[in-house]
Structure formats: C-alpha cells, structure tokens
C-alpha cells in the first residue's frame, strides 16, 4: 500500500473534475498524506477475512410490475440546467475524435 503512484491529474480525469495547477499540488500533497495514514491497514492480517459491503441483512428487492404515477415531467425538467422540449439538452456527444 504505497502512495508513490498517486497521479492526481490522472485521478482527476477519471473523476471528471477540472483542477487548477494549484489544486493539483495541494490535493496531491494532502491525499498523499492521507494515503500514508490509511497504509496502517497493512498491519492487519486480512487474508482469511471476508469483505463487508453491508452490515445488516440485505436481500434483493423486487416490486410488483404495476403501473403507478411517476414524478411530473415538467417538475423534473424544471431542475435541469438546459432543456429542449421534453428533453434535457447536452453538448454534442457523438462524432468527437
């Protein structure tokens, strides 16, 4: 568990957050520091321990396939930054190189 490989600009790209150079330097140092702290987990012998995703009983949840009212389309679209008719409008996705 080494933090040497933390390439903050690459991680920011994965997370889709544009960072300034100042943020790259600051967050890089802060996250490197945090990774140093979490490296203590290497002390624990965890080889035979199962992973916990959920602490209380969980099961697959299905509901009856019954038609029921949804949120009002106009109300939902009123929260969108840009719309066109009944759709949310976004910049071009297809046709980029």
């Amino acid at each position: 568990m080494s933090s040497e490989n933390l390439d903050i600009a690459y991680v920011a790209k994965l997370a889709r957050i544009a960072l300034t150079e100042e943020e790259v330097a600051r967050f890089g140092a802060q996250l490197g520091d945090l990774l140093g702290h979490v490296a203590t987990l290497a002390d624990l012998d965890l080889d035979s321990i199962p992973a916990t995703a959920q602490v209380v009983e969980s099961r697959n949840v299905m509901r009856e396939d019954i038609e029921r009212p949804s949120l009002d389309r106009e109300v939902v679209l009123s929260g969108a930054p840009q719309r066109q008719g009944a759709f949310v409008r976004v910049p071009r996705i297809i046709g980029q190189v």
Partner: protein
Amino acid sequence: MSSRISSGAKEIARAVNARECSAREVVEATLERIASVEPQVGAYLSVLERQAREGADALDARIASGERFPLAGVPLAVKDNLALEGTVTTCGSKMLERWVAPYTASAVRSMLAVGAIPVGKANMDEFAMGSSCENSALGVTRNPYDLERVPGGSSGGSAASVAAYEATIGLGSDTGGSIREPAAFCNLVGFKPTYGRISRYGLIAFASSLDQIGPLTRNVEDAALAYDAMAGFDPMDATSVDRAVEPTANALREDLQGVRIGVVKQFDTHKLGNDIDDVYDRALHDLEALGAEIVEVELPTADYGLATYYLIAPAECSSNLARFDGVRYGLRIDGNDVAEMNERSRAAGFGPEVKRRILIGTYALSSGYYDAYYVRAQKARTLVARDFAKAFESCDLIAAPATSSPAFRFKSKSDPYSMYLMDYYTIPMSLAGLPALSVPCGWVTPEGGERAMPLGLQLTAPLFAERALLSAAHAYERATMHASKHPMQIAEVTR
C-alpha cells in the same frame, strides 16, 4: 408566547392537541425566535415561513375536527440534504444552490404525518462531508454556547437550531459521526439508529453503506418520540430493514439496575487531558451510581477505524456524486463537449473537501488499487464489526467519549486529517452499523477560552437495541441533568 417553545416536544404536542394553544401560535413564536437569534447563529440556509404557517393552519383545522397527533405543532429543522417538496435543497453546495426538491424524503413525511412542522432547512458541511459546518459553501453557522466556535458537523445547522430554540427537533444524517459530534458540541442528544432502521429515501446520498438519518434534540424523550415516528420499513429504500420496531418513548427508565456497561480499553481518556478525563470518569461513576455494572471490554481494531472509514466513505462518495455531472440537475458550466462540460461543472460546483473525497475514492476504486485499498478496507470493516459483537458478549451497552474535545474555534483545523480525527470515537460504531447516541455529560473550559463548553457521552448498543439504548440514556440524563448547567452566549428563550 415564547414559553411555548421552551418546552420539549411532548409538552408542545400536548398543549396543541388540547387546544391550549394553536400550532400556528407555536410556529409564530418559533419564527420570532429565529428572527431574533439567526443573525448570531446562522443555523438555517432557508426559513420556511410560508410553508410553516400553512402547515400549522392545516394542522389546527384537523385538530379542531377531532384528530390528534403525537408531535402536533412541534417545530422541525430539516438538514438540507433531505428532500422536502417545493423547497430548495442544497446539501450546502453550490452544485445544488438552486435545486428545488420535486418530492419529500420518507423520514420527513413520517414527521409530517405525526404533526411536526418544518420551519427551516438547516446548514451543513457540503454533501455532509465535515465535522464543523465550515465546509458549507453557502453559510456560516456558529455554536450558540460560544459564537467564536463551530457547532460541529456535518449536521451543524440542525444542532445549532435546536440548541438555540429555533426548532424543537432537528433531523440530521450521520455517516461517521455527523449527528453525534454536533450534538456533543451543542449540548444536545444526538441519536444515530441502527443502519437501515430509518428510510434513506430522499436523503441525498454520501456513503450509502453508512448513511443513517436520526434526530438531534434537547432531551432523550424527544429523540425517542422522533425515532418512534421515523423508524420502520420503507419499500422505497432497498436497504431499509423489514423488521418490527419496538416503540421506545414509552419504555424510558429511571435507573440502570442490571445493565452492564462496557468501557473500551483502547479508548483511554487520559490522553484527552485532565479536565476532559475527569468529566468521563465522573460519567462512569454516575452510571455506576444508577445501578449499572461497569466492565472493561476490548476493541482491538479501534485504531484502524479511521483508516477503514477514509477509504470506504470516499469510495462510495465518488460513486454517488458521479450523478452531479451538469446534465439533469444542479449547476452546469458549458464546455466544448460533454466531458469538458462535466469537468467544468464539477470543478465549479464542488468545494475543496468534496473534491478531495471524490479524488481519494476514485483512486481507491481505480484499476490496480481496488484490492489494495477498497477491498482491504472492507475486510478491516469485518474485523471492526466482529470486535463489537465480541464486546457485546460481556456487556449490554458501551460507553465512550463522543468527541476528543469540546467545540473548537473556527479555522483551527486547517489540515484535513486533523479534522478527520474528530470522528475517531464515532466512526467504529458507524462501520459496524450500530445504534449510538451522544448525551450531555459535563462541561470544560477549553484552554484559552472563557466559556464553559459541553461534552457528550457516547452510548452504543447492539444492532436493533434502540430501546435499551434510549432507555439507559434517559436514566443517565435524568440523574445528571448536565445540559442545564451553563447558559448559551445568545439570549435565553423566554420561559
């Protein structure tokens, strides 16, 4: 009129149901109090004057026609990550600064159904990430007991509003301590039930395997009444637990005969300094005097809680907050293509702490690091939960500090990790999903400070043992009455 809001929830509901006063009068007294102290406290991001008045009038009409409600007319502060239809629901973030919720969270609906009246949306650390409310992008909240100090976080607005009598019950959410820590800082009871007990439908997600809604109140009975109203299965939340809920408010005890209370060997309070150590020592003596048997228990992995949490919570947050991409809701900053629009919107919409957590979570989940960080943390989480299960073989409840210090001054935790350390005592319980609460347990005057500040005793119970937990906290509260021993810095409410 203010005397109407100096009482607890039970007394307010009794008076409103008996028509000794109207819900409208309670709301007017609350709005008056808010107008008078908000300039100092800043607990709310929005005050719901119109909705509160309309809600009160509608409730009064139903009471006039013979209906009765367990929390009739009780003023409610709603943390601003809980959806309330028609209100701006910001999460303390520029990302959602103007987003109007199109529906109401199940927990809030449950409170509305028993007659509580939302009076405001409370400030919080952005997306519930923080321990001081300083990470809010939209406002500053001050601790009513010392205005130079933080109210705690992330449910800091809910805590400050209830402490300042701007509401009787505050709804908060707790992922690693976000109800218990601000409750301790603001002299309140802060209760996080078992994971899955209260529906999270309509709670804007931070870390889904840890998030839990709960109340912040000025006494244990109010917390029990709020819990009784909100707990239970909800088909709208796939993780809500389908298991019978025992009512708690009718089972509060006055003694602790036959209760074994575990003290964690690894939580040595000597290192917190003499004043604080004395307060926690006395708390154990008081528990013993009430009939409890104090036993030592071990949590060998206690020191690994923070490391575990600061991988799991950011990993889940990086996934949950991916939805804020400038497309369907929230802030959008235009770009030449979708990716650039996403990157710019998230850069402008999120504050530094949220960015840090998303980045660490993205890293922990990324190819090549997933097993080394995320899976390893999930395995450590198993050990933490096993430790508690073992400890509860020899005790019924665990007593521990809620925080390692009283409320600190603004800007005194500039290094992110020093802020994370504030959750040292509350995180292990969250990782194990256990019900836990903070109850006022004494006062200290911090070094360099002039005012006495409250501390909280954290009590933890096994999964689903909320009834035993609240009951014991009630006995301790009644016997000690620490909450009333020192005044706030703001004007006291008229009694």
